[in-house]
């Protein structure tokens, strides 16, 4: 079973003030003898394009596990995990055995090296998470964030979560620490692996293409170009259908099912509330595109967050333009 530090202070607040996120893992960042207990929180909100499965009368559908041999439904305590070896043998591995493989890796992220951020090729970046200080570690947390910002270096380490080892870069982001998981070298194919043709110095159109590139070059990212057009099209369709109240299905039995899911272990935490409590009382969290339909976004987040029972409050997102930081090659452009 994944080892998880018990924290008693992270109750879901009465209303959702920002992004509702789940804490997947708790542990400690260590560098030298300094330890910073932290909670790992998701930093990526789901897209608003997900559709749920219902039957034609609108009843919520969900999954159930059945034994392929006997055909009957299985309870959770009848389920185990196994692997198939190369010669077709099935080997069962228990949760305890998973734990025993690397107990020292599950609780700590040891900073083994601090490297210049711009040296990490973008291809290596996998998924970002936020780290919130748990316990009384705010001072050491601020120290690490400030020092990394000053030196332009990020900390490299690894930890185990959900039976997988993750390589991470601990990256400062406007005072907050992010844990960005990185791919391992053997997970990235080389051009030779892919079978691309030999590199060529030829390029008679290069000069003309440079001119085209110049004419389209700007200094900043425009996040409206990263809007979710599919979500917008979907929302339009839904808005049209909603006008006819006959189209709106009311489902029962959903709260209980979602409560079951939440009780599975991952805490749902309001990120902004957590940051205000543990780090800075003026913390503001917003999405890069402040014109996102927040009500819909909050409802989606709440659907995944079954522990909360009160209706979503409209989030006040304000545009925040950060003053230019020291010019490292990889500035964080967080224009809300």
């Amino acid at each position, binding site marked *: 079973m994944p080892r998880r530090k018990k924290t008693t202070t992270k109750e879901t607040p009465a209303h959702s003030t920002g992004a509702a996120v789940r804490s997947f893992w708790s542990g400690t960042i260590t560098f030298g003898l300094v330890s910073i207990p932290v909670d790992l929180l998701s930093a*990526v909100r789901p897209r608003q394009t997900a559709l749920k499965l219902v039957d034609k009368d609108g009843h919520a559908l969900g999954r159930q596990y059945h034994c392929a041999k006997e055909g009957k439904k299985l309870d959770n305590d009848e389920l185990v*995990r196994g692997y198939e070896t190369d010669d077709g043998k099935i080997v069962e591995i228990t949760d305890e055995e998973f734990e025993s493989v690397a107990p020292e890796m599950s609780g700590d992220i040891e900073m083994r090296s601090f490297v210049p951020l711009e040296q990490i090729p*973008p291809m290596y970046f996998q998924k970002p998470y936020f780290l919130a200080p748990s316990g009384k570690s705010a001072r050491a947390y601020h120290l690490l964030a400030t020092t990394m910002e000053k030196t332009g*270096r990020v900390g490299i380490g690894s930890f185990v979560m959900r039976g997988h080892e993750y390589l991470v870069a601990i990256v400062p982001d406007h005072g907050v620490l992010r844990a960005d998981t990185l791919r391992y070298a053997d997970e990235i194919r080389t051009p030779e692996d*892919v079978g691309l043709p030999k590199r060529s110095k030829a390029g008679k159109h290069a000069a003309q293409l440079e001119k085209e590139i110049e004419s389209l070059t700007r200094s900043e990212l425009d996040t409206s*170009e990263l809007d979710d057009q599919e979500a917008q099209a*979907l929302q339009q369709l839904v808005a049209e259908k909603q006008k006819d109240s006959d189209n709106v299905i009311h489902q029962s039995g959903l709260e209980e099912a979602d409560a079951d899911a939440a009780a599975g272990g991952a805490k749902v935490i309001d990120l902004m509330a957590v940051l205000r409590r543990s780090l800075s009382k003026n913390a503001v969290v917003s999405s*890069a595109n402040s014109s996102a339909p927040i009500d819909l976004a909050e409802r989606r987040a709440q659907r995944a967050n079954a522990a909360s029972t009160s209706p979503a409050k409209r989030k006040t997102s304000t545009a925040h333009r950060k003053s230019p930081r020291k010019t490292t090659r990889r500035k964080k452009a967080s224009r809300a």
Partner: protein
Amino acid sequence: MASRAIWKGAIQLGKHEVGVKLYAAIQDRTVHFRMLHRKDDAPVEQHIVRKDTGKDVPKADMRKAFALSKTTAVILEPEELEKLVPPESREIELLRFIPPAALGDQWYDRPYYLGPDEDNDSYFSLVHALERKNVIGVARWVMRKKRYVGALSTFDGYLVMSTLRRAEQVLSFSGIEPAKTAAPNANELKLGQQLVESIAGDFDPQLWQNDYRQRLDKLIAAKARGEKLERHVPKKRKPQASLADSLRASIAATKEKKVA
């Protein structure tokens, strides 16, 4: 090991068109498990059932719905969803080029290699042009009925397209100022910087191996042979001294050994 192209497209830049083929750049190394029935290691299958009754639902009765709240939703018929599918196109549209520093790492999702499609010269012309200007392109295209946004750049002499997250997905912060009691003092900041610089290095991906994966493979192999593996005994962590003391002691320790 050569892979098949996932898709074929054409990058549009003014009057120029650069034909490309898209290839996966990620090699999955995960050890995948399967779910089994404890009793006889029989395979387990997933059934989709009604949450309230637990009864199976035939595929023909399944619908997709958009949730408006925890208790209300709107059913979307297949014909309606079909209308949302974007028109098929091979075009990769470039919206703008920006300096690499303008796109934070938290935007990057999944990388793909782009290889030439017949016309090597126009392909490598674009590689060289991008390398010389040192910019990345924000691109949009439609692939297999879905819309994508991505960042076009170069890597090791070839074109790479990384899909990007959508604006609503990425979170950003402001207003993080430590409370007076939590603000590190000048001495701690100095020691902190010394400690970071003593563990500083260049990024070399070959330095980092996935140990857990290797140990897991050994465990599975040993179990298959009927053997028991030794437990790894975790180090005990010493109690935390004051921040300044920990920093000083750490710097002293790293002066003696090299922390890889």
